[in-house]
């Protein structure tokens, strides 16, 4: 374990470097979408050390998303596996999570998984105002797609169908 990642105050009390913690958190995957990690999804909001204690702040995606509990447990496991014993995982509701926080890399990974990535904020506001949004089929790339249902296999996805290759696919809802 590279010592540069730890600043030793006293033999027992070791404080991990912030970057080291972020690198650990980037290994924690979303249980529903294993291709994505919780950092690129924008779930991890902040990592700070307050009076010699590590505090990781996360924010839930959907209020009722059961994966959030699993994510909290996985973060705990990942930190402990890297010999970080004293830390706290804080949950905050504000500012509310938005799909705009997802990195472009995360969006590409989604397409690779056969899930159409969420468009940047404005597109979806059109839908809520009744205008259809333009969702590309992750398999054949056609724009000729239509929504089957606003609610899909998980809270964060709705169900679409491609009119060109006739395949159903999930669209990651904008929120």
């Amino acid at each position, binding site marked *: 374990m590279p010592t540069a990642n730890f600043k030793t105050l006293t033999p027992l009390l070791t404080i991990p470097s912030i970057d080291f913690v972020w690198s650990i958190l980037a290994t924690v995957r979303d249980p529903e979408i294993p291709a994505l990690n919780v950092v690129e999804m924008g779930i991890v909001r902040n990592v700070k050390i307050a009076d010699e204690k590590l505090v990781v702040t996360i924010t839930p995606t959907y209020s*009722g998303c059961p994966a959030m509990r699993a994510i909290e447990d996985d973060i705990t496991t990942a930190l402990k596996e890297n010999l970080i014993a004293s830390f706290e995982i804080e949950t905050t509701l504000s500012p509310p999570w938005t799909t705009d926080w997802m990195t472009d890399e995360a969006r590409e990974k989604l397409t690779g998984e056969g899930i159409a990535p969420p468009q940047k904020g404005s597109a979806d506001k059109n839908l809520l105002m009744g205008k259809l949004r333009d969702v590309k089929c992750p398999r054949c790339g056609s724009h000729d797609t239509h929504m089957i249902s*606003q609610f899909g296999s998980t809270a964060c996805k709705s*169900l679409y169908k491609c009119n060109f290759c006739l395949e159903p696919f999930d669209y990651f809802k904008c*929120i």
Partner: protein
Amino acid sequence: MKTSDHLFDYILRTADNCLIYGQRIAEWCGHGPVLEEDIALSNTALDYLGQATNLLKYAAQIEGKGRTEDDIAFLRDASEFKNLLIVELPNGDYGYTIARQFLFSSFYLLYLEKLCGSKDEFLAGFAAKSIKELKYHVQHAGDWVLRMGDGTEESHQRIQKAINELWEYTPEFFIVDELDTDAISSGIGVDVAALKEQWKQNVSDIITEATLQVPADGWGHKGGRLGKHTEHLGFILSDMQYLQRMYPGAKW
């Protein structure tokens, strides 16, 4: 607010709406008319249960008696619940469920819009998050009201009957009592009476577009927010609280 008990009771009103409503529409899980709707209502119920959890966690913290959100949800009797009567009513047919979702979520969306401006930091954060989900609920229900109203003779008749029956449960949305006044004057709560105009406009637009009639205003059921409930709540609680009642303190 005057006392933390007042704030606790005020939070319970919205928390119980979410908790009981989420529990009630989750009953459609496995019984939906089509798979997509089965999933839609289950997802909607999940959102409401998540919102209830967030609010009950905060309420438990405010109360400061060491209770958790699970204790508050599972170890209270019917008379201690503060939800609106409309959310505890049985699901009925799919027209009834959609009509209720449409009338209730249209109100709850407006409520959250105003709650975003609450002086209570947590409640404002909660509202800003929950409102995102509510937009999908309202839009989903509105689409179905249109489909049913402007659909076949039978769907038109069923949704109209449902809206007529449920209309007398909507006045309770807008009642302002001393607890509300205390919450409003301290800048934490929402003046629900002021939402009536906008709510009536929003729902009437969709109802008339769906070739349906907007029922006349009149007498309304009330009492849920004071713990006086219909017989239906007891059945929900016997389902929801069964495990904690049979094995008190059971843990996963």
